[in-house]
């Protein structure tokens, strides 16, 4: 007898179905076309969730939203759309949708929210697992999240520890020496995993029994572990890579919230969220900048996270035509205006009365300066550019290289790192970053340092 939760799809396009197919397979799917009469008819079995394609056939977005909401007042209602035109996320939500997703950028968020809802609706029988790197875990330490490993041979998850228990020592040793070094945590317990990771990172930085060097090494090693998650086979697809980066983002957020003066973080996120974007370049840059800071011991991770969130806030003030173009495609006049965005970001921060450390302002203002003096807005040269700005610039660059841009190829994380590695070597006149800093940054990425050999 099937106890699968039931899900209703309304006018969902096949290529969107493909993206969530594995999740759909765990449910009883009822499909109806985008048709007024069918929208208002009873559906059997009654769904626990509704996923709709974009409004069509003379229905406005408001009408689709309001009709579905009237029909299903208590259910999560998701709108999923491929095309940017006509997509007004705030409007859809105002009129009744629980959330609206623009693919492919919001794929990660869609999958995460869908998994959560299905897990809830199935009372936990549907389980979705997320791959994680458990930092600095010791054998006796109980974890407040369940862990599993994945057996590719029979495609099953095998539980390795219960919530509240420690992971077995021999298993840990086996995992460290084998290639299979991802553990899995149930999706609904990820928040506990984020808090655990953040606490570990904080403890490493503050443990009285460790010397400064030991602290730095431990942090660097942990950051290396977190970042290496972006380079696994699982992360190779754009969606999975973004999911892992979001996990790192949650860890960074938890890290900041565990420190002092943390309420600004939610405030800033709220300001950014006003623009209604799920996918966030600012969020990714914030995560990467904070991780680089932790791994290299440069600047404060909280400051770098803030700088990452705010570094491009001024772009929203640029004329519309310029906002949607990539710098390579701009006319000289447009480029001149675009180059004002660091200053405009600073102005916006002042205007919004957001209280921000001086170093964060500096980093944002200088994040497009280049080591060889060819950057903007001031053409600063060499070490006049603060280190924090350079880290911010590298975080920005890395996300820019690996994110999806309409009509433009993107690099995988490995390709992006190769690109950065070759950057200054191939053409000495193109020294954009302090060579030593870049070298140290690359050691945080896989392949950056020689792996230590085991001595039996």
């Amino acid at each position, binding site marked *: 007898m099937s106890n699968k939760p039931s899900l209703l799809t309304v006018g969902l396009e096949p290529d969107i179905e493909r993206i969530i197919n594995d999740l759909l397979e765990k449910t009883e799917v009822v499909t109806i076309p985008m048709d007024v009469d069918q929208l*208002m008819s009873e559906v059997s079995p009654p769904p626990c969730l509704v996923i709709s394609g974009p409004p069509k056939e003379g*229905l406005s977005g*408001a009408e689709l939203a*309001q*009709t579905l909401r*009237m029909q299903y*007042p208590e259910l999560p209602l998701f709108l999923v759309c491929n095309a940017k035109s006509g997509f007004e996320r705030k409007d859809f939500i105002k009129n*009744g949708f629980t959330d609206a997703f623009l693919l492919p950028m919001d794929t990660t968020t869609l999958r995460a929210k869908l998994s959560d809802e299905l897990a809830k609706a199935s009372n936990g029988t549907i389980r979705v697992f997320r791959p994680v790197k458990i930092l600095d875990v010791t054998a006796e330490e109980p974890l407040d999240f369940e862990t599993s490993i994945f057996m590719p041979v029979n495609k099953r998850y095998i539980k390795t520890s219960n919530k509240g228990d420690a992971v077995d020592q021999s298993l840990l040793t086996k995992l460290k020496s084998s290639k299979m070094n991802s553990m899995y945590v149930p999706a609904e317990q990820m928040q506990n995993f984020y808090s655990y990771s953040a606490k570990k990172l904080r403890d490493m930085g503050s443990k009285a029994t460790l010397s400064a060097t030991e602290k730095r090494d431990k942090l660097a090693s942990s950051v290396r572990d977190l970042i290496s998650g972006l380079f696994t086979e699982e992360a190779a697809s754009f969606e999975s890579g973004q999911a892992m980066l979001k996990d790192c983002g949650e860890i960074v957020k938890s890290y900041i919230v565990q420190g002092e003066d943390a309420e600004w973080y939610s405030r800033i996120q709220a300001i950014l969220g006003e623009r209604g974007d799920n996918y966030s370049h600012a969020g990714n840059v914030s995560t990467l900048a904070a991780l680089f800071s932790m791994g290299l011991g440069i600047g404060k991770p909280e400051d770098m996270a803030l700088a990452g969130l705010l570094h491009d806030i001024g772009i929203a003030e640029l004329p519309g035509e310029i906002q949607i173009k990539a710098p390579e495609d701009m006319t000289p006049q447009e480029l001149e205006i675009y180059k004002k965005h660091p200053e405009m970001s600073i102005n916006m921060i002042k205007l919004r009365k957001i209280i921000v450390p001086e170093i964060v302002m500096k980093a944002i203002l200088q994040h497009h300066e280049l080591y060889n003096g060819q950057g903007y807005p001031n053409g600063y040269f060499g070490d006049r550019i603060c280190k924090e700005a350079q880290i911010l610039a590298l975080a920005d660059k890395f996300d820019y290289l690996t994110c999806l841009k309409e009509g433009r190829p993107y690099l995988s994380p490995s390709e992006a790192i190769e690109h950065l590695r070759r950057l200054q070597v191939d053409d000495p006149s193109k020294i954009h970053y302090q060579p030593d800093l870049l070298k140290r940054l690359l050691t945080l990425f896989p392949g950056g340092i020689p792996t230590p050999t085991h001595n039996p």
Partner: protein
Amino acid sequence: MFNPSTPVLVVDDMMTMRKLVSKICKEIGFTTISEAADGALAWTAIQNANPPIGLVISDWNMPNATGIDLVKRIRADSRFNGIPFLMVTAEAEQHQVVEALKAGVDNYVVKPFSAPVLKEKLEAIYNKRLAK
């Protein structure tokens, strides 16, 4: 509660919403339901209705004449100013409720609503106004 044969006028520019509200009215027991797609068409319907409209359920945001325009017109006309009026809207901001009440609506319901909720709102109107 209203007599089931009370002629009801459902006003909304969205066809799906008109259908949904009409369906809910039928569920409650009403037998005579007509529809109009905006405030101007509703006014025409009210003027021409025979038997006269006994209850108006109207959306707020509509082209040509809004729900507020409609209720003001109804209240200003001695032939129709006694017609009970329920305003439906997707928003529930404080200032809108006050504006609606000042303009003369009897009650106010926020989308989405179910049949029991609508029934409750209508009963409140009936008990206040007509049970005398």
